């Protein structure tokens, strides 16, 4: 049969989507992934240390500024965006051992585990195995990888006790953070070294999370210099793989330090470094020319890397300040399928000026160079060229000013960013904030954001074996014409302290997406080397437009001093359709069916006598037809007991309501079963 045969063509038209899907499935299973799926305010916990107050005099106590309500920092009333903060308490009491699991209780954030070492994290739709529309920052260091246009979650590892808080901003963040902060930003802020003096040792063991261990030592030199050193390790078991192949194990060792130096009241310096090494298992499907067949193999990616982050903040009289931030990041991944070595250097400065007429002007500039080299290990998996330097030059300006002295503020600004793929990208926003009474805020925003192409969109050359006799190959190809995906977003929100014990936050959004990724026009060709046969070429294209709208509701109720209940509900409607001249309805359907339309969580935090705590959270996620995932509900529970000031025992169970459940297939054939896990742990501090 040849492509000239009409019978083949009709069959081909029916099956090509399936083929492409299988091909992509391989990418996904291998960690090369791409497409897609979905969906997020809140009361932030004040991480207080009552012990610090103990030593104050009566007079000093009278000068301590307090939050008016236990859980809501004053700042949320001045924030014209859908922001949610996970505090140290939230982090510890969640019992989570990985960063993505921590985010599961955040309103509007869709966390789906693909397998034991891969997660899809989406905000307000278009989730994907590499979380490509969400920007994850750790102490200002971007974790975005231009190769797969997203986050390698299996190397985003922090000592959770070192985390001061995690800020999650739902909605476009391009004006400040630039490209690829399309649907939201997740910022992990680690603790100042002065807050981690002394020794910490903790260990836990159980099912799925077989081992987690960390040690930390915090030291000081005089009053102005503090630093900490840490080392940690994790071993995670396989999840419930389709055929019990036990391929998705994960282990990682990680060490680092942080030093904070405050030579004067005006200046603070921070230096941080990390180094890690480990292995992340996956099942991959690789096209092979000799013998000619499609192979399915269990692969283990060696993952290693590190970073150095330097930060200087200088405060001027009058409330203005200057930040200078620089980092180097190295990422290595090497598997049977392919390898990549990437070095990223980034430099940013930001100047914040308090000006006349109560204006807050922020401007800054930055540059990033990220050379990478692909180590090709298979003739069928390639990025061409092997070596490429991704670069960004950017500047931004944003001003906030008062329209009414106390109650109405307008923020306008824009990012201007040059990248090596699409040239100049402009990402403006305007935000309005109204405080009708104290402890109530109504806000609205209009923003533009873009997802710029990466190496996958432009340089991928992936070949799969479709049939052996006759020999027919399928090639997914990056397209040199691939453009940026655009977002124009409208948002509004309201938050209010309804009573002393009840806080509620509501946000609604409507987003318009243009030029989303799809497959373009396919073409048939023949090849003669390394085999003789036919090849179906499928290029990427910007062939889909989309719309999302939705609401997120997040109440927080503290009926008594020892019990807190937090809930959230998110609704999302996502519509995607081919643009004029394109016909890829299947990818459109995949976008639509890879994001939950409804999510709900209920969280209870209970303080018991004798310094014991019992917490649980329940969650519901609606079905994902494109991921072959049915709707599910499950529950995590966490109990801990502080024996004396230095020893804490913990028992934690996750996904308690069933032996295993599915969360995301990532365009793979079948999703992996995410298992119930239980662990016990002990933490010692001195």
């Amino acid at each position: 049969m040849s492509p000239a045969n009409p019978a083949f063509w009709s069959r081909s038209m029916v099956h090509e989507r399936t083929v492409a899907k299988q091909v992509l499935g391989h990418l996904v299973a291998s960690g090369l992934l791409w497409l897609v799926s979905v969906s997020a305010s809140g009361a932030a916990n004040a991480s207080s240390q009552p012990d610090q107050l103990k030593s104050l005099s009566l007079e000093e106590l009278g000068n301590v500024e307090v939050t008016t309500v236990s859980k809501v920092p004053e700042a949320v009333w001045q924030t014209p965006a859908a922001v949610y903060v996970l505090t140290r308490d939230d982090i510890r009491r969640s019992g989570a051992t990985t960063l993505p699991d921590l985010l599961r209780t955040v309103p509007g954030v869709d966390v789906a585990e693909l397998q034991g070492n891969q997660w899809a994290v989406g905000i307000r739709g278009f989730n994907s195995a590499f979380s490509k529309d969400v920007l994850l920052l750790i102490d200002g260091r971007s974790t975005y990888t231009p190769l797969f246009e997203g986050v390698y979650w299996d190397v985003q590892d922090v000592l959770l006790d070192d985390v001061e808080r995690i800020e999650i901003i739902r909605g476009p963040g391009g004006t400040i953070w630039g490209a690829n902060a399309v649907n939201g930003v997740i910022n992990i802020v680690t603790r100042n070294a002065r807050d981690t003096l002394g020794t910490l040792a903790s260990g836990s063991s159980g099912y799925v999370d077989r081992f987690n261990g960390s040690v930390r030592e915090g030291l000081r030199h005089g009053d102005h210099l503090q630093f900490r050193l840490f080392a940690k390790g994790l071993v995670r078991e396989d999840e419930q793989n389709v055929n019990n192949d036990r391929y998705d194990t994960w282990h990682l060792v990680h060490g680092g330090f942080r030093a904070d130096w405050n030579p004067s009241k005006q200046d603070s310096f921070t230096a941080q470094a990390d180094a890690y090494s480990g292995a992340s298992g996956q099942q991959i499907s690789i096209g092979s020319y000799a013998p000619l067949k499609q192979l399915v193999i269990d692969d283990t990616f060696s993952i290693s890397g590190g970073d150095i982050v330097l930060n200087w903040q200088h405060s001027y009289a009058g409330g203005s300040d200057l930040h200078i931030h620089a980092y180097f990041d190295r990422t290595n991944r090497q598997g049977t399928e392919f390898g990549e070595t990437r070095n990223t250097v980034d430099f940013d400065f930001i100047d914040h000026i308090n000006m006349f007429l109560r204006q807050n002007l922020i401007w800054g500039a930055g540059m990033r160079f990220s050379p990478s080299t692909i180590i090709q290990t298979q003739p069928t998996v390639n990025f061409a060229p092997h070596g490429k330097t991704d670069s960004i030059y950017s500047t931004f300006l944003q001003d906030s000013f008062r329209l009414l002295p106390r109650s109405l503020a307008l923020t306008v600004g824009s990012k201007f960013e040059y990248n090596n793929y699409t040239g100049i990208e402009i990402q403006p926003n305007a935000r309005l904030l109204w405080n009708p009474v104290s402890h109530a805020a109504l806000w609205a925003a209009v923003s533009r954001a873009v997802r710029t192409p990466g190496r996958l969109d432009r340089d991928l050359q992936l070949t799969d074996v479709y049939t052996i006799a006759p020999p027919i190959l399928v090639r997914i190809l990056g397209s040199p014409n691939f453009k940026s995906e655009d977002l124009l977003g409208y948002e509004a929100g309201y938050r209010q302290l309804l009573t002393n014990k009840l806080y509620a936050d509501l946000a609604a959004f409507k987003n318009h997406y243009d030029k989303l990724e799809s497959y373009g026009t396919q073409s048939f060709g023949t090849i003669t080397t390394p085999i003789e046969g036919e090849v179906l070429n499928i290029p990427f294209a910007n062939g889909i437009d989309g719309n999302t709208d939705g609401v997120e509701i997040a109440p927080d109720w503290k009926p008594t001093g020892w019990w807190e209940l937090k809930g959230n509900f998110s609704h999302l409607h996502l519509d995607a359709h081919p643009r004029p001249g394109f016909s890829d309805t299947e990818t459109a359907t995949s976008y639509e069916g890879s994001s939950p339309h409804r999510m709900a969580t209920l969280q209870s935090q209970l303080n018991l006598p004798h310094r014991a705590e019992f917490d649980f959270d329940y969650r519901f996620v609606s079905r994902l037809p494109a991921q072959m995932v049915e709707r599910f509900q499950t529950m995590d529970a966490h109990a801990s007991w502080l024996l004396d000031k230095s020893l804490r025992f913990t028992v934690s169970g996750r996904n308690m309501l069933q032996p295993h459940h599915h969360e995301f297939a990532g365009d793979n054939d079948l999703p992996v079963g995410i298992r119930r896990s239980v662990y016990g742990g002990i933490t010692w501090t001195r």
Partner: protein
Amino acid sequence: MSCGLVLLLLFPKFCNAQNSTQFTTHDVEAAYLYNFAKFVQWPDDKSTSSQQFSICLLGDDEFGRKLDELIADETLQGRKIVARRLSSASAAESCQIVFIGQSEEARLSKHLAALTMKPVLTVSALPQFLEHGGTIQFLFQNNRVRFAVNLASAQQAGLTLSSELLKVAVFVEGTAGKESKQ
């Protein structure tokens, strides 16, 4: 510099507020309760009758474990400081400090009547607490927790308040001429 670059950039106000560790009113009130113990002198018979120094809470517990963590392993003149939750004011016999919670507003007069003439330092954030005969009332002023004192109530209870405590109080009632600092 606990402020993250992220929020600072978009919303400088967020960060200004986050720069200082944030405390709740209850954090500060708990610290006051602990501190008051050092600036109040109880009648002798009371202070020697027990090996424990009891800070008692009447009404719904507003502090959670905050108070317990604050006073854990702390002693006062060799006596271990403990926090106790009371079901009624009549159980306050062996308490040195009684904090009356928000939930007790309707029963305030009853509670204070039960405690009157007893060597107990009564503290509350309820409005009109001093007028009802309470000794120390927390006040919320300008995002800060301050306190006012009814000296007559203290004297009735046989308590001696140090001059340092009186100096810091926003105002002191129940002295000759109603000395007032504000």
